[in-house]
């Protein structure tokens, strides 16, 4: 029932949007639409929630220019398509949505990025979520291993209790795209903290070394820049199970951004930060200081890395002392390191030495 309401609200909002465009044309105006700018200069720290959200600056999408006109037409097609899905109780993946546009002639998308972005624009304008529009992402297969019991409602409506350590194989529990309460409930948790890990290689190393059992941890594989469901899952672990979250990633500017989107909110989806970000998540490495302290094998920063680091210097999310220091240091030494560089000191170094040291430093482990 609650679900039904959300869809109805979405239809209302979408219709309002079309009505706004209709009215402008009827008033002999050039149709346009205002959208909060999705730029790093337009994100503001929200004290109440502790995450970064969009500020007040808006941009205008106007039919005066070809791109704007095209985007407005695409919007109309998309609205029509979404309303249709809600009415007929169907849903589509973002990729399917992109292919649907093949039949939209002038409004056809030239890349899936474009259709994904427009779907996000509509979320921002309508304050709905894409699931409300019946759009869903592809499964991205992020995995979880650890002593936590969840209850998942499967596609037949049957509820299943799953312990993410004992009831799953070595590849762990796969996080579905929908991790809301109607789909997943947290039943029980014996773990002390959760580690979010960027790479599959490091996730597997921790699993093989039984880090989860030995230290009573939940391991979550981020698979690069984490999907919304992964971020939402982590947030719920943190809020509902009171698990401290630590983020263990490579030591390069892109991994800094993985942490930022997980902990502070992503620039692209800052309208959902309150729902997706875990402000208390701690970055445990690799840091530029780690590279020096542990004398890790490194790669030279390339031009894109340096550009990214410099961009981060003006990114408000990285404006605290810790990040300022780490970013400057990395630029200074001109080096980056992978998580797996820790293997320099043996296969057990990460689990036996590095992580315990780091976790104790943060007070997560006693």
């Amino acid at each position: 029932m609650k679900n039904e309401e959300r869809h109805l609200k979405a239809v209302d909002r979408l219709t309002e949007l079309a009505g706004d465009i209709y009215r402008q044309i009827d008033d002999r105006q050039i149709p346009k639409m205002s959208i909060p700018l999705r730029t790093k200069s337009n994100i503001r720290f929200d004290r109440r929630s502790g995450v970064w959200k969009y500020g007040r600056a808006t941009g205008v999408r106007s039919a005066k220019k070809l791109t704007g006109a095209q985007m407005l037409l695409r919007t109309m097609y998309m609205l029509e398509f979404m309303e249709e899905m809600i009415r007929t109780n169907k849903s589509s993946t973002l990729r399917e949505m992109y292919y649907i546009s093949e039949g939209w002639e002038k409004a056809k998308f030239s890349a899936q990025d474009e259709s994904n972005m427009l779907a996000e624009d509509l979320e921002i304008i309508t304050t709905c979520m894409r699931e409300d529009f019946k759009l869903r992402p592809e499964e991205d297969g992020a995995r979880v291993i650890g002593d936590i019991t969840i209850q998942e409602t499967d596609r037949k409506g049957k509820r299943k209790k799953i312990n993410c350590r004992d009831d799953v194989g070595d590849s762990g529990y796969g996080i579905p795209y929908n991790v809301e309460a109607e789909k997943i409930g947290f039943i029980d948790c014996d773990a002390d903290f959760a580690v979010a890990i960027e790479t599959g290689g490091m996730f597997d190393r921790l699993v093989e070394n039984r880090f989860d059992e030995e230290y009573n941890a939940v391991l979550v594989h981020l698979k690069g820049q984490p999907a919304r469901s992964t971020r939402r899952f982590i947030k719920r672990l943190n809020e509902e199970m009171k698990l401290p979250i630590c983020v263990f990633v490579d030591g390069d500017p892109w991994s800094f951004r993985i942490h930022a989107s997980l902990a502070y909110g992503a620039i692209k989806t800052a309208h959902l930060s309150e729902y997706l970000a875990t402000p208390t998540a701690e970055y445990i490495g690799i840091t530029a200081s780690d590279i020096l302290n542990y004398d890790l094998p490194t790669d030279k920063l390339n031009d894109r890395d340096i550009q990214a680091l410099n961009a981060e210097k003006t990114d408000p999310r990285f404006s605290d002392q810790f990040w300022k220091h780490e970013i400057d240091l990395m630029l200074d030494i001109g080096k980056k390191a992978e998580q797996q560089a820790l293997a320099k000191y043996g296969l057990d170094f990460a689990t036996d030495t590095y992580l315990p040291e780091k976790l104790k430093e943060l007070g997560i482990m006693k």
Partner: protein
Amino acid sequence: MASIAHELAKKQKEISVSEFFEKNKHILGFDSLTRALITAVKESVDNSLDACEDAGILPDVLVRIDKESNNEYRVTVEDNGPGIVKKQVPNVFGRLLYGSRFHTRAQRRGQQGIGVSAVVMYGQITTGKPAKIKSKISDEDVAYECELVMDTKKNRAQAVRDDFVIWEKEHGTRFEVNLKGKYVQGKQSTFEYLKGVAIVNPHARITFTPPDGKAMVFERSTEEMPPPTREVKPHPEGVELGELLNMAKYTEAKKMTSFLNTEFSRISLRVAREILDKAEISYDQRPSRLNLDQAGGIIDAVKEVKIMSPETDCLSPIGEGLIRKSLKNVLGEARASFYAPPITREPKVFGGNPFVVEVGIVYGGQLSREDPVQIFRFANRVPLMYQQGACATTQGIENVDWRRYGLEQRGGKGIPYGPAIILVHVASTKIPFTSESKEAIANVPEIREEIELALKACARKLKTHLNKAEKKSKTRVKFEIVQEIIPMIAQKSAKIVGKPVPDIAGTITKIMNVVWVEDEVVHDKKRHHVSVKLYNYTPKTQKMHIHMILPYDKVDEKSLSLEPAEVRDGSKVTWNIKKIAPTDIFELAFDLKGVDKDEYDDNEVFVSGIDPASIIGADVLPGDWDLEHITITENGGAAGEASDNGEIDYDEGAEVIGDEE
């Protein structure tokens, strides 16, 4: 050059011709194996074309090259000309410096009788094999066939193994010669040469079979023969001393007055007497007694006496229409996007010789954008293949600042870069070549100036086209918005909210705020359908004048959608458009009948009586309303730009969003 030939004629008894030949291979065009083969083709094809034209026959020339052994080739050239009578065959093909055209002043391909006989001799010297000739005149039932052996000492050819044979051809001549040569492909090749021949001889069909046996045909693009070129007597201003003495020696005139009057053009008896007075020569002196001093006196006197300019109607330019047609015909595979209307200048005179310059430019399509432009040079309808740098045509091209006309050129000098072919044709009763090899036109100031003027005139048309194309592409974007996207947005939004489709007129005029002119010409069933559409995308009712340049006598009156207000000079047509309401489209349409397809393939549309800033798609009427002097009117880009109100464009932010790599 003529004087050198005379010298040569004088010395003929003293040195053997083959000796001369050996010494002068380079000027005769046999200095490399590659060039020898091209020269052989060139001389025989020139002969064939001249023969056909003299007889008023549309030339159908077959050229075949067969590889005999490593660097021995057989060149066969066959035409459908009038044929050569048996007695003349050895003279035409076997004697150096034979032929009437050497002494005449007319626009001819070969201006020197050295032509094809040099090929015969070269073939004999390099392979030891005689040339084969077969010829049939229409009066005879059979063809005469023979082999020619040159007696190089006597400058005479002997016909051996001659016979009469059956030949299915009604009339024509076939020439076959074996020679040492090298067949190549590329810029300087037989193929390129024949391609050039086809361009400047649109009335000729040329079939070429290279050594690989794959025949290709350059079809003729017109059935019309070029008007026959008239022989003219020499104009006194161009006569040199030796020539004058020679003429005086052989004239049939008995007195100096009648000699000057009959042997030269533009000398009346009165002018003759005036010249003789100035040179202090008696009217009645026998011309044969003219001495060197007296001849010099006449030449000096000619400079002081006012003499009418030479006749110019003896020239046969290809003509603007045919150059374009021919370029399209021969260069079709390059799919050029624009054939600039060619320029044929009015005839001018240098040193007593009339000449005319023609220029054509081909642009775009699959022509290379990175390379220098291709230059096609022609003199009296003969392609010039070598010594490009030394030629007045090339120097003329290098001297024009092509950056002003839309081509790249470093520092505004030199051969420009870009996807273009530039054709220059100089026709004259006497082409001043830099050397005997007749490959480069000498840098005569009068000719250079005409070349540059013609190049600039043609280049202006290219620039006008490029400007128009650029403006069109800019406008096309807005047109797409208002014609395709806005109607769809209106329709979709109406459907979603469940209301009738709103009127988009107001929105459209706000976006465009301009009158858009779109013209089109479609050729179908021997008619040109011309349409000029005026879209009033402004919030006001508009009126204006439309001006076009077209052959008004070819307009089908019944097809006219609006009577013109004025027709000037039979081609400058003006319409008054009294009222176009906002978002209305006014269409001006008519058909042209009986105009050649290629003669009218682009409309020239101008507007007046309206703010130039609110017009897109047509130029403002030039002040002088004169085709040759259309100035390029640069419109400000302000038209149709609505103010921005300082808004940030959501879709054009330069900042990359997202945390992804």
